[in-house]
């Protein structure tokens, strides 16, 4: 009985309006972005320049794309540690397949995305059919794929086609193409999460998997779908890196899995699953990107960058928890 709230006991928890409770993390993360931006523009003239802002937004697409996939996985109650290695492998494979030839672009993109999806499929099958924990499956995949990538190449290989390379610098009006691309992905992803049956099931599974199963939801299928999506988005991130670097560089994607998880958590998505969303993740991505940018502009050593990033994540999550009580 203690867990079934009497109306009286319930009231005390209502004192924070549900809307605020639900959006509390968004307020925090976007508020922090504002604070960091104001601080930066006051302390350095180099921050609020068109070129710098352009760069911050453009860079966000890299972490943003992989973090979207990670958000789906985490909402479903899982985690994907293999995305960094998928990015690495994707950058190599796409560079090798494309090999500087414009007519190979289509094939390279298709093959790379298919590879990402396939890895996601294998992750998903191992998690659902063999009932191995996502952490373990994707930790294994992280290591295997990383090893695989280094057998493919230990130094930069392949080449992007010139047209593909240009994508990185393209603008639509004043805005970088990649930023608009990320925004579009976030909006589509949000629609999928909030307005489609697939999205509803993801929240349901992350919230209470057993209930979802007993409600007749194809839990395994949805979960596999989530990992496939995450793998494909990681591969897409690898393609973006190719568009930036022009070659397949084996150091691509180092630490991207933890960066992505950090962004997702900063965005207010619960590591336990069942709640969160992409608008928050976008905020997390922008906050991380912005913090790095500001620290670079202010000439802070990269050691301090990591330190500050750690403080930001623990601090932000501590703030969310306060909002919830």
């Amino acid at each position, binding site marked *: 009985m203690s867990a079934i709230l*009497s109306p*009286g006991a319930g009231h*005390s928890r209502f004192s924070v309006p549900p809307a605020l409770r639900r959006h509390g993390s968004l307020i925090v993360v976007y508020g922090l972005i504002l604070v960091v931006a104001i601080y930066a523009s006051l302390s350095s003239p180099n921050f609020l320049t068109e070129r710098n802002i352009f760069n911050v937004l453009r860079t966000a697409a890299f972490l943003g794309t992989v973090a979207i996939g990670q958000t789906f996985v985490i909402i479903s109650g899982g985690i994907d540690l293999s995305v960094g290695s998928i990015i690495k492998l994707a950058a190599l494979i796409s560079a090798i397949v494309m090999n500087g030839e414009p007519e190979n672009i289509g094939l390279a993109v298709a093959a790379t995305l298919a590879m990402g999806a396939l890895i996601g499929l294998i992750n998903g099958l191992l998690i659902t059919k063999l009932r191995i924990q996502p952490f373990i499956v994707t930790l294994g995949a992280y290591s295997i794929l990383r090893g695989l990538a280094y057998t493919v190449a230990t130094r930069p290989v392949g080449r992007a086609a010139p047209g593909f390379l240009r994508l990185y610098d393209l603008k639509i009006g004043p805005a970088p193409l990649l930023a608009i691309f990320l925004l579009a992905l976030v909006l589509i992803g949000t629609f999928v999460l909030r*307005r489609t*049956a697939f999205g509803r099931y993801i929240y*349901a599974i992350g919230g209470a998997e057993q209930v979802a199963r007993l409600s*007749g939801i*194809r839990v395994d299928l949805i979960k596999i779908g989530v990992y496939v999506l995450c793998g494909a988005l990681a591969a897409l991130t690898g393609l973006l890196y190719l568009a930036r670097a022009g070659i397949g560089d084996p150091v691509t994607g180092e630490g991207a899995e933890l960066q992505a998880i950090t962004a997702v958590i900063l965005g207010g998505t619960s590591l336990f699953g*069942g709640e969160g969303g992409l608008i928050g993740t976008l905020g997390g991505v922008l906050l991380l990107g912005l913090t790095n940018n500001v620290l670079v502009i202010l000439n802070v050593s990269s050691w301090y960058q990591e330190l500050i990033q750690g403080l930001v994540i623990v601090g932000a999550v501590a703030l969310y928890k306060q909002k919830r009580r």
Partner: protein
Amino acid sequence: MTDAPILEMLNISKAFGGVQALREVSFSCAKGKVHALVGENGAGKSTLIKILAGAYQADSGEIVFKGRRYAGFSAREAMAAGIGIIYQELNLAPLMTVAENIFLGREPRNRFGVIDARRMAKDSAELLERLGVRLSPSARIGDLSVASQQMAEIAKALSQNADLIVMDEPSAILAGQELDRLFTTIRSLVAEGVTIVYISHRLNEIFEIADDVTVLKDGRVAGAQPIGEVTRARLIQMMVGRPFEEVFPRGARPRGAPALTARNVTTERLPHPASLTLYEGEILGLAGMVGAGRTEVARALFGADGLRSGEILLKGARIRPRSPKEAVEAGLAMAPEDRKSEGLFLDQSIRSNITLASLDKVTRFGVIQRDKETATIERARRELSIAMASPELEAQYLSGGNQQKVVLAKWLETSPSVIIFDEPTRGVDVGAKFEIYALMRELAERGVAILMISSDLIEILGMSDRILVMHERKIVAELTPDEASEERIIELATTGAQAEMNAQSGRA
């Protein structure tokens, strides 16, 4: 043993925001007695107990315990004063042993400051002995039955020298013999002078174990009397203000064609072949002890546990549900026993809870159509009279009764022809119970076939058109309402088939 009150809570009031949870409630327990505290959910029992436990502070009023006056106290002071609370959701560390749990945070130390495991084991054994339970102090909590875990909790309270133990719905997680054992323990504790406050929805128990009863309704005391001076009907009336006869609606519909037939069904958890037929428009009660295999039968029918052998016919057509998904598509629905872990998404909105099993009805090309979904929810709210502030609210904020209605609404949207209710009114207050009974009966009248699993014999006898009794994972008897009685069901459920011969003596 005297009748002097060991505990008096005087004129306790408590408000949360604008809601007055308790108004001038006075509650008094005589030493060495069992005092039942009853009332619907939301009546204020939990709030009152939490004030006693020191979890909440009263706005006004005072507590007199063992002659000392307190304006209020902290959880720590409550414990030190000798008040032990056994919550329904037990507070034990599953990976630690019984002894470690009993002394958690108060481990006896030897003179080197190291935990004295031998003394801990010895003291635990003595405590368990005193409770009359055979339980090894070195057993791991997680390996024990819920009943044994409860005993460990009681031992823990005793180890803190509690002279007043509050048990919050202890029977909700027990059945049959386990409950008898708990009662034996309670009686021996009372004989030692310990006072018990016993909270329960189940009137049978209250009449069996309690000396006195206090009824709360809407945050006020509706009555406080020795149990001998009050009748069952009077007690219900005090709790809900409705006469007893209206509790169980009877059906007028003759039973129809077979809706669901199971023939020699076995699963991993149901080793003996089980067969049953469920007719359209009937409520078939499935009685038995906890662990007798009732839930396993439900899970087999619903495709939650894969069939090893046997067949299931739905309206004459063979189905072989390998997953709940296939069962749902065939027209089955199940409201599971453990609503919180199997029936409801506590953290999700009422909206997504209600339409979750039938999303295809409100989606087009996989996209949810909000207005259609909202219309569905409005209809469910109206038809089931679900009390909710907004469908966007998370389901955890609903009362037990309303939660159960949301589970029901979810399934009604799939237009099932068969619904399995596993303990439909567990954790549901009396008022909402009536509504759920009425809904079940209405569904049956519409031709839905209902299989109702229940440990509440009153519910089984009151609702069922036919009763099956299970014993040790076998269906041992089928009874008509005329043949059935509490005694006969208990006998069948505890001893199995042989008892059927001499069960006649149990009816009188």
